[in-house]
């Protein structure tokens, strides 16, 4: 393969909300075909970074490109390449699973002749064929997440962006979601950018990870490299994280507590 542009290239990104600096001079490169984990506690700036990459927020400073396309100048072109699953469980409960996926097939110009087949294939790949014609409001949390993956995948995106894909799910549903992600990557070779604050998941499933804390990247590499860099002082990504951030992994502050409560409420 000829070396093309990086899947995601972030240079000097900065974003603030009032006085709060959410993302501070961030540099990040995601290579085509890899599963890249952006890790950090609540409030580290992961979601803000994702929102800039998906064109939801304009970058205040710095540049962000997706497969060489600038997210600010080429919004529509970038959107065509990206499948996005937001943090909240957000399938439309008033529609059936199949209708949810078919909508995204239409919005991404899947040719009419292939629409039915590709919708069914995406639903099948996520193990939802039997429930496809039930309203999504009857789905469990894990099923909604997989339905959202089907929505994101039906357009065959080059870059799949998942914001906390396993938040609020039970352990079985969590591994179910990750297995589907690995399957899809193996079948299609698409690039996956995922944020999570579950270090164990990142260690198990990501090719490379970046540890983010208070708006900055503190360390980047394969999980193995990062653990090796501790020189025996630890044996997991959790330990790596502590060594880079001190012990303040949980010190997100009041704002995070509120955000976490909000999320919990929303997810029931």
């Amino acid at each position, binding site marked *: 393969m000829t070396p093309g542009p990086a899947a995601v290239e972030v240079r000097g990104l900065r974003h603030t909300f009032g006085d709060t600096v959410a993302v501070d001079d961030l540099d990040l490169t995601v290579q085509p075909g890899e599963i890249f984990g952006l890790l950090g506690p609540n409030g580290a700036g992961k979601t803000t970074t994702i929102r800039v990459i*998906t064109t*939801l927020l304009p970058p205040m400073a710095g540049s962000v490109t997706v497969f060489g396309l600038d997210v600010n100048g080429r919004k529509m072109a970038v959107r065509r390449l990206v499948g996005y699953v937001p943090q909240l469980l957000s399938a439309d409960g008033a529609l059936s699973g199949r*209708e949810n996926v078919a909508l995204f097939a239409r*919005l991404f110009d899947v040719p009419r002749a292939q629409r039915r087949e590709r919708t069914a294939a995406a639903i*099948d790949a996520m193990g939802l064929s039997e429930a496809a014609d039930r309203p999504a409001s009857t789905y469990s949390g894990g099923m909604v997440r997989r339905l959202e993956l089907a929505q994101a995948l039906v357009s065959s995106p080059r870059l799949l962006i998942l914001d906390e894909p396993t938040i609020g799910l039970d352990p079985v549903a969590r591994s179910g979601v990750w297995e589907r992600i690995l399957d899809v990557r193996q079948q*299609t070779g698409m690039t996956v950018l995922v944020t999570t604050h579950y270090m164990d998941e990142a260690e198990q499933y990501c090719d490379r990870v970046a540890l983010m804390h208070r708006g900055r990247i503190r360390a980047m590499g394969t999980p193995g490299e990062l653990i090796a860099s501790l020189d025996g002082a630890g044996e997991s990504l959790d330990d790596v994280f502590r060594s880079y951030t001190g012990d303040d992994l949980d010190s997100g502050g009041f704002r995070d507590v509120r955000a976490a409560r909000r999320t919990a409420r929303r997810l029931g």
Partner: protein
Amino acid sequence: MSVPLAAPHAGSARFANPVRVLFSRTGAMCLVELQKLRRDRTELITRAIQPALWLVIFGETFTRIRAIPTGHTPYLDFLAPGILAQSALFVSIFYGIQIIWERDAGVLAKLIVTPTPRAALVTGKAFAAGVRALFQAFVVVILAAILGVGMTANPLKLLGTAVVLLLGSAFFCCLSITIAGLVLKRERMMGIGQAIMMPLFFASNALYPVAIMPGWLRVLNHINPLSYEVEALRGLLIGAPARLGLDFGILICATVVAISVASGLLGRLTR
């Protein structure tokens, strides 16, 4: 896995014509709104109760006491088109609350990062509001016919009535989304929705003729699209004098402007 997923495509090789994209996306959003309505049949019926009460109780009573001078037209006939417009207004104002709800649930952000023009998302909502209004109108028209209101049976005029209702609902739906884009909070939106709905209704010719309004209310009536909607409905349905060209012109312009403004503010909801 029986059918494999397609491999990622090579890039944005398909350069789509923006106008075609706008139409095709608008179609997709309208379709999805229809699919949602299909599961909502009970609500479609229950929402027709309020306009039915206006017609049956308010209408019948005021016809009897002859308090409102409507010339040779019985008051109930005069009122029926007004109630059609009112029920369309009440349906539409609800969409601002719905869009904030969709924002809070993350649905809106997910739609906005698809290659879909914002105008298509807004137009889909506007269309859905119109379809709901048509369902209610159907119930109200049947009821009015039972109560003896003399309405046209001319299919062209009935079609015109449907178009007027679609345009009117689309305008008020977009107005509501515009307000949602400005206030951003559901609670505030509900308060403002209530606060603008009644003035829009009372500062229009829906319940009484313009001739009996005080001067300042006539001014409001002049800039209130609801009045033009009611005038057109009255002209088409019961053959009252109407400036149909002006009415349609104003409704179309107002709707186009409202769709543009609402689309412009949609981004604020996902920041």
